[in-house]
């Protein structure tokens, strides 16, 4: 055997091995599900003019998702904005069965409630900063956290411009609103939308021409929070102005 023939034989063996690798890789890829023919894009609409600040949404979220009862662990919460006559705006997170001061109202120009939650951005900063790829966008638009991969570094909690994430004290992983992913996959509404007594929250598919969310967008002018950050949120607000951030 000359050198030429030896090289040819070695090349044949390597070729066979790489072909085998390729077959193994291909068989692993085929286990992924077939893509949906009509992709959904879940979103939520919030009509601030309808919110009465009862806090039932936040309470239901804690029940549904096993969020710790302490007030600073929240997946969704309701803020009260108070604008005084001198133009100052103060924001507080309301607590259940909290009584609010009625005095000194002559200084208050207006006040209103704004429900907040994860905006499920189409361009999410939390996903960009995660060093282990534990948080990601699903094909239907929800941003989820893989608690099995999350290492609890809190980068995402820092990166979220809406303060929508917290570190779960039991699992020590980042936790956030999932749009009640287990409910919407069973064609149920998210718990907060389910219990909202005034329909201040609506939920639906942004790509569907007949969803309640599409109707809200048609009937009302909707805004997103912090549009300048280019995060492209999928939580749309009706009836807010520049004071709400």
């Amino acid at each position: 055997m000359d050198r030429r023939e030896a090289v040819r034989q070695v090349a044949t063996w390597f070729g066979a091995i790489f072909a085998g690798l390729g077959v193994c890789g291909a068989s692993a890829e085929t286990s992924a599900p077939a893509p949906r023919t009509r992709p959904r894009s879940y979103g939520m609409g919030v009509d601030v003019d309808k919110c009465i600040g009862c806090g039932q949404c936040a309470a239901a979220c804690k029940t549904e998702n096993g969020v710790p009862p302490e007030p600073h662990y929240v997946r969704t919460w309701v803020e009260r904005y108070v604008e005084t006559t001198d133009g100052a705006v103060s924001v507080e997170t309301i607590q259940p069965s909290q009584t609010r001061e009625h005095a000194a109202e002559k200084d208050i120009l207006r006040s209103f409630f704004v429900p907040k939650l994860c905006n499920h951005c189409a361009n999410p900063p939390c996903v960009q900063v995660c060093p282990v790829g534990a948080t990601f966008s699903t094909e239907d638009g929800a941003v989820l956290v893989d608690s099995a991969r999350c290492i609890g570094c809190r980068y995402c909690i820092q990166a979220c411009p809406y303060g929508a994430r917290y570190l779960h004290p039991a699992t020590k992983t980042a936790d956030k609103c999932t749009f009640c992913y287990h409910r919407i996959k069973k064609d149920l509404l998210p718990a907060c939308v389910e219990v909202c007594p005034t329909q201040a929250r609506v939920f639906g598919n942004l790509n569907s021409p007949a969803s309640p969310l599409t109707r809200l967008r048609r009937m009302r002018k909707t805004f997103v929070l912090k549009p300048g950050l280019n995060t492209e949120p999928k939580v749309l607000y009706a009836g807010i102005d520049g004071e709400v951030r």
Partner: protein
Amino acid sequence: MKRSLLGLPDHVARLLVVFVVFIGGAIAVRTFVIPASLKETGRHRTSTEERESAKEPKYAGASQCGTCHDAESAAKAGGYHRNVSCETCHGAAKIHADDPSTGTPPAPRTRGFCPVCHAYDPSRPTGFPQINPAIHNPLKPCIACHNPHDPKPPVIPTECTACHGEIARTKAVSPHALLPCTTCHDVPEQHRVSPRTVTATKPNTKAFCVKCHGKNSTVVEAPKIDADTHGEKYLCWDCHYPHLPEARSWTDEKL
């Protein structure tokens, strides 16, 4: 040169064995050790989605309750609470919906619950029905007067003071104290149920006041004016507040 495996030179064959071991090991690790979810090349991961989807809901959804609770859902369907989900008040009830014999949802019958939504709060939107729990029938449970499945103002509003207390107190010290509200206002029956959508009428002509206060009126105690000269183009309530018209003595002095 020594020839061995496959007729290759010995040193090539040994090198080949090393390569086969490394590559075979890599294939084995990739196939059996690394979980399938880590090998997905898409931006989402099916395993996490499946784990999230597999979580059990705790709220059954509004459509579930009516299949058994006919009376309540029928009462609710036409009332103001028609869009309030059952579980807003009764709490998460998936357990009860799956097996009706267990987990009977609590019914909040105490006075503390309804004010969660209906206590007065200046930040609440205008028009949302609100009361001050401190002065609205204190210590009485809400359900003593209101049916939570079809809430209405309870049978009362026979007298207007229930809602229009400020006007009633003003009128009580005025010369019009003895006149019932219906002298001037026509109150449709529906006004008691939907006070904001069906409103009472108000007089809209000068002739209405002149019926009593005109110089030809037979009402003895009413001060009289000459409708042709008094007040010119103005309507009576442009100058006189009907719920507290000027006292007679003052009018007499002027006359």
